């Protein structure tokens, strides 16, 4: 009883016009001051603790999620006003589908209403220049929610000053899997070739080749007399000519896709696999086709970490800060690919619905302090090496 009295008293006090006015200005001032120092480019949030907060306050779970959404609005405001460019939030994990159907439906309904509201206030997003991106496995979302998602995303597509990444049915492992799958797909189809850009036509070159082949056949005939008799003389010679021919064609092919031929692709066109039957126009065209289908595929050896990064859902530099509320010290499958390098991970004890500027500020100031500290140290190291150099 005492706590509810205290809470209502506090609420009454905070809603007094002068107090409200003053608080408002203090906040603006603090955010403005923060901007004087370094500001992270990308912050990620795991919005954990909505349910526990609701349980602690004897409210319904969905109400906890609602309050969580309001906390998110507050945090976003602080982030964008202080100049953070990317904010990524973990809105819904694929694991969450394992919860009760009632809660999942409630969450989906909430997402839908919030998205409808967002679409009504598109102008607000324009003010911050923020575009919304919804990332994750879309196949798991209900169709009516998906429709609202697309509407909200489309509406803010033009904004480019800030980005809000909403991870909605997302897990980090699913993201890595998705990225690997996309990369494999990419590497199992021939790349798009720029068409009509060169002055040479393939058919003309083919015609030239054919005339040369005819010439070489004639030459071969002469050669057979010159070389000492050999058990498979004629045959091996023919296949030799075949192989040089093949490699020539392959060179042409690979140069036309502007890709270095790998050892594997040249293996595919190796002479041992070639039928040693005499050269005929349709035989060479078959060979051309088979060489094309294998050598047009990009070489898997060119896959790098950047390729995988490019195919992840999140199109942003890795976050400098990852904040997780509710005192659980786990990533819980969030942004595994992005956060395992230099990201500083912060676990806070407060529940997400309580999270606001006053929880956020110390984290941000500490980050700034560390950043400045690091800079100063680097400066000192540079100074000392300079000193050594000059000495």
């Amino acid at each position, binding site marked *: 009883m005492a706590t509810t009295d205290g809470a209502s008293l506090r609420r009454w006090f905070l*809603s007094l016009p002068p107090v409200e006015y003053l608080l408002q200005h203090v906040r603006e001032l603090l955010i403005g001051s923060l901007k004087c120092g370094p500001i992270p480019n990308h912050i990620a949030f795991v919005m954990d603790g909505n349910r526990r907060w609701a349980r602690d306050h004897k409210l319904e779970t969905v109400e906890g999620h609602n309050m969580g959404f*309001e906390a998110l609005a507050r945090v976003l405001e602080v982030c964008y006003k202080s100049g953070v460019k990317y904010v990524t939030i973990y809105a819904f994990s694929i694991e969450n589908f394992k919860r009760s159907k009632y809660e999942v439906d409630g969450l989906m309904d909430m997402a839908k209403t919030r998205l409808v509201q967002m679409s009504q*206030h598109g102008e607000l997003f324009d003010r911050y220049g923020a575009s919304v991106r919804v990332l994750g496995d879309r196949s798991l979302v209900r169709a009516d929610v998906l429709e609202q998602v697309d509407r909200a995303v489309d509406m803010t597509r033009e904004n480019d000053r800030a980005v809000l990444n909403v991870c909605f049915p997302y897990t980090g492992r699913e993201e890595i899997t998705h990225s690997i799958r996309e990369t494999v797909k990419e590497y199992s189809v021939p790349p798009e070739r720029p068409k009509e850009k060169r002055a040479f036509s393939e058919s003309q070159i083919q015609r030239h080749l054919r005339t040369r082949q005819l010439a070489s056949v004639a030459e071969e005939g002469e050669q057979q007399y010159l070389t000492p008799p050999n058990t498979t003389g004629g045959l091996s010679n023919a296949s030799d000519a075949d192989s040089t021919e093949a490699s020539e064609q392959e060179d042409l092919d690979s140069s036309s896709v502007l890709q270095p031929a790998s050892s594997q692709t040249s293996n595919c066109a190796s002479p041992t696999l070639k039928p040693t039957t005499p050269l005929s126009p349709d035989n060479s065209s078959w060979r051309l086709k088979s060489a094309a289908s294998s050598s047009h595929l990009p070489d898997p050896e060119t896959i790098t970490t950047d390729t995988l990064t490019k195919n992840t859902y999140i199109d942003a530099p890795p976050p400098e800060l990852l904040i997780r509320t509710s005192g659980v010290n786990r990533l819980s499958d969030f942004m595994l*690919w992005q956060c395992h390098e230099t990201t500083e991970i912060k676990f806070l004890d407060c529940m997400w619905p309580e999270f606001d500027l006053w929880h956020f500020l110390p984290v941000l100031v*500490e980050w700034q302090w560390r950043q400045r500290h690091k800079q100063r140290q680097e400066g000192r190291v540079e100074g000392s090496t300079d000193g050594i150099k000059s000495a």
Partner: protein
Amino acid sequence: MVGARHAQAFHADVDEQGRRLSARERERLLKPYLPPTPKPETSHSSAAHKSPLFQHKKRVRPAIRHAIHSLIFTIIHVFFSVYIRLREAYHAVVNQIFTVLYYHHRTPELIKKDMKNLSKVPKHLSVILQQSPAGGDKDSLETLMNDACEIAAWTASAGIPVLSIYERTGILKHSLPHLHRRISRTMTSYYGEAAASKPTISLRAPHLPSYSPPTSPEPPTNGDDADGHVHHPHLAIMLIDESDGRQTLVDLTKTLAEMAQHGKLSPEDISSELIDAEISESVMMEPDLIILFGDQIVLDGYPPWQARLSEMFYVQDHVGGVGYHVFLRALYKYGQAQFRVGT
């Protein structure tokens, strides 16, 4: 930040008279909190050309505001510096007390006693070690080796069967036989020469042949030895580095892409389960607990696939490197934590 009254109105979606808010009203409520509409560049520059006086006036206020902001920024950071120094000093004292209070004295029984109150211990423990920037290569390798040996001994004493040691550069990996000898020696110094409870160890690094020296017994496969010997506890140690993280996933992708190119696999067959099976086999399973001995949680290239649900532990403002009290506190934290999947 929206004031309390307006927040209430938003929350209930009704105004003070209890009417439902329309989209327009909601926007009106929010107006005062929004940043000014971004002005198109062109109008701005033309205004500057038209009236330089007016422009001048506009320049003063932002300058004053900027000065105030800088001042507050400096004040915040001065206070914060003081605060963080005090906090560091406080934690240094606390850590020192912990170091004195909880010391293992190289006695497995003491360590076991420390573990008595825990409701659960991790099955797979992972530690992140960092090469100290100061000192030469040889010194830092020596320190790393020492730390690895100590941690291995504590882990064995705590009854944890699997330990993985992450070190970014992989310097530990390249001296497997030497490290094995060192760990055996440390174990002997903890357990004594021929104690029955002395655990056997196996040392392994992904993509390197497992090292089992001729003198040490093979890892027990069926529990007891053939001649009914006492069961030795076994500790499996894994050394991992940066290349076992992203690079392994890239290598896996390369293989999968090659298979897809030869028509042995369709991209649709690629699932989390497949990748998990491959990664767990070639590198390691996911650890239950990751202990960081630094003063912040930065994974520093730790294998991303495996870091999914692992609990992470660090001690705030801890600068002393590897210490037994950090190890112990991590296990205590883990022992009390409730395990939940997802967010």
